């Protein structure tokens, strides 16, 4: 437990937003890079919380979903692991945070997520809630997650996703929002995660089924917003996952489609109006907005590349076939449930 010298809680944020709505606009950046030599990696970019910047350094070596798994790298997360961590931790934070605002004391909360990518297969979130509250209150909390969790709301809404390609010698090309009818089956493997809440906005995300020996992805808010910079926040995980999946696709198909290897860099961005989560403005949009990614390529062999059109076609394909992109842009069927852990005291 931390030593409670917090001087900024969501309470102050709510009142600040009511005085100046622009303070409620949070902007996030997730960056990913695919290099023929160094493989796939992701990092967060500087975030803006209203007018305050938070520039933290979190970098992850990722397992490339397009590369066969070897025994040595199975502990590294994949892009879908990052994305599910973002969705699960946002739901967890909404449930615990909102419940705490109602005065509920939680002993432990965890959530298991699955995402199969198969057509019509639901995304599932199964919460285990250890708190001395009646079952009706648990149902209320689950309902609030459905209504107020920004990443959950993004999952079930149709959120436009834009992309832009930045060739080094030509003007930036902008893509239209991804067209769901053009989507193909994602090559990404199914994702499963187990997340457990620790304290305040902090949680840990593990491969599922849970093993205490597994490396955890740490989730936290920045110190500018109630956290202590222990890890990226939920929206940053989602953006990193999205950027990484697009970068992985580009890396996997670069040689076959363009005739040469390349270093691909993808920057995914989104805006969250936190007034939606906090209900500071009842009319505020809850889901993420202005979601998009910007792609750039560098290669010693770039001069031998095929036409710009070939590159744009590859980028368009990478964006439109991204399973994580589809989680954002297409409304998903989500099964959400809650149970008490076996050790929990009976409801009162």
């Amino acid at each position, binding site marked *: 437990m931390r030593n409670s*010298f917090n*001087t900024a809680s969501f*309470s102050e944020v709510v009142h600040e937003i009511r005085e100046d709505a622009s303070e409620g606009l949070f902007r996030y950046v997730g960056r990913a890079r695919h290099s023929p030599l160094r493989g796939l990696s992701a990092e967060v970019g500087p975030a803006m919380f209203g007018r305050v910047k938070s*520039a933290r350094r979190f970098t992850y070596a990722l397992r490339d979903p397009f590369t066969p798994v070897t025994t040595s790298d199975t502990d590294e997360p994949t892009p879908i692991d990052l994305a599910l961590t973002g969705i699960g931790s946002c739901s967890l934070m909404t449930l615990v945070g909102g419940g*705490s*605002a109602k*005065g509920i004391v939680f002993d432990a909360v965890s959530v298991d997520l699955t995402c199969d990518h198969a057509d019509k297969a639901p995304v599932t979130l199964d919460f285990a809630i250890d708190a001395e509250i009646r079952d009706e209150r648990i149902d209320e909390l689950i309902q609030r997650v459905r209504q107020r969790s920004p990443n959950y709301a993004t999952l079930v809404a149709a959120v436009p996703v834009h992309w832009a390609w930045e060739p080094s010698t030509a003007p930036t090309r902008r893509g239209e929002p991804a067209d769901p009818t053009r989507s193909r089956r994602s090559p990404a493997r199914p994702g499963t995660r187990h997340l457990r809440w*620790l304290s305040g906005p902090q949680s840990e995300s593990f491969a599922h089924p849970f093993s205490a020996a597994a490396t955890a992805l740490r989730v936290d808010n*920045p110190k500018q917003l109630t956290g202590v910079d222990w890890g990226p926040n939920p929206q940053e995980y989602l953006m990193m996952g999205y950027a990484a999946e697009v970068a992985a696709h580009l890396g996997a198909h670069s040689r076959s489609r363009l005739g040469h290897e390349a270093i691909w860099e993808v920057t995914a961005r989104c805006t969250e109006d936190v007034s939606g989560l906090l*209900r500071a403005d009842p009319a505020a949009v809850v889901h993420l907005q202005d979601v998009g990614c910007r792609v750039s390529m560098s290669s010693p062999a770039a001069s031998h590349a095929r036409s710009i059109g070939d590159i744009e076609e590859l980028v368009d394909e990478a964006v439109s076939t991204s399973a994580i992109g589809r989680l954002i842009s297409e409304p998903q069927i989500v099964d959400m449930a809650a149970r008490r852990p076996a050790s929990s005291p009976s409801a009162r």
Partner: protein
Amino acid sequence: MDRTAIGFGEGHTPGAEWFDELRRRRIKGPISTQNRSLSRSLAPETLAVHAGTYEDPITGAVGTPIFQTSTFLLDQASYDAFADGALRDVPIYSRYGNPSQWSVQEKIAALEGAESAVATSSGMAAIAATVYALTNCGSHIVSAYDVYGGTYNLLREDMPSAGRDVTFVDPLDLDAIRAAVRPETQLLLFESLTNPMLKAPDIRGLARIAEEAGALLVIDNTFLTPINVRPLDLGADIVVHSATKYLGGHSDLTAGVATGRRKFVDRIWAQVLRFGGTLDPLVCFLLERGIKTLALRIRVQNENAVALAGYLASSPYVEAVHHPALGGKGHEALRPEDYRGFGGMVGFEVAGGDERALRFMSHLTLPYVATSLGGVESLVSMPANTSHSSLTRRQMSTIGINPGLIRFSVGIENVGDLVEDVQTALKTACEVEDR
């Protein structure tokens, strides 16, 4: 409130159903009901005397009492503060807060036109806590290559291992500052008047760059004090001071302060707690008492410095004089309308270099040869063998520290006496001993 839910449940009241019904909000201060809270629109002379003064309800003492205690009786308000994570506004333990601190903090906040202030055990404690509190590991800071040596050492020697990258630039070159900004730039840290060359950066221009970059602008206002300029009014986000200097004003204490919006100062306060740079109650008393005469002292020091600079500019024994009132290099961007004066510092180069400068100082009979500045007594020193002695000649030349440079902190003595003493010392050092 359950402390594991930190950040979520503060401000909870019975019946609250969601975040929007939480009641805790930022208030100015901290101050108690006994501290005088005055409108920031009052003149600085008035604020310096009255703002923050603790009006003791038992004795009616006119002066602020010294709360020389490390701890306070716990009561329900204390327990509520613990439970709600709001320890800054309740007297619990002097490292968290003490009415002596609140008194001087409120006085300085009022003078700088700020919501809140936190007093620290030195100027460097204030700067270090501010830099750490307002930046993250992975961020970038822009500062001046001729910033105060203590600040430079912090930025140069501690920031890399703390994950903060720093770019040092000419504080007068706004284009260079803009070019140094990166996406992860979080802080611009400059001085309202630099040490020892007395350059006056364009604070409004710096504020524009900071705003465009989404960064915060921190101004060290030690040399000018809020009597001469209020950087927050010009767009800065945080003002820091070595209160050891002009604010204290009597060369008898070591203290610092950071002031600005409570949103930021609360974070600096929490950092001060963790670093342990709390200001002792007795020193708080000395500082608060000293500030009561700040406006008077600064007015005299402004005038004395201009008079001394004028004399030095006409002296055949002086190569160059650095003072904003004289204009010239380093002061092109200065907007006179933003300043009420330029403080008591004068820089000048004794013709003949360091040896003559040393001789000159040894012949002075009124000023003390000592480091520090801002006291009622005049102090002189040479940057080349004190504050900037770790620099090479070439580095010194780059920032304008030429041979023979003297830093003169003008006190409140009679300026005629000071000028006469300087005149005699220069003549003795440059003529008599050269024979």
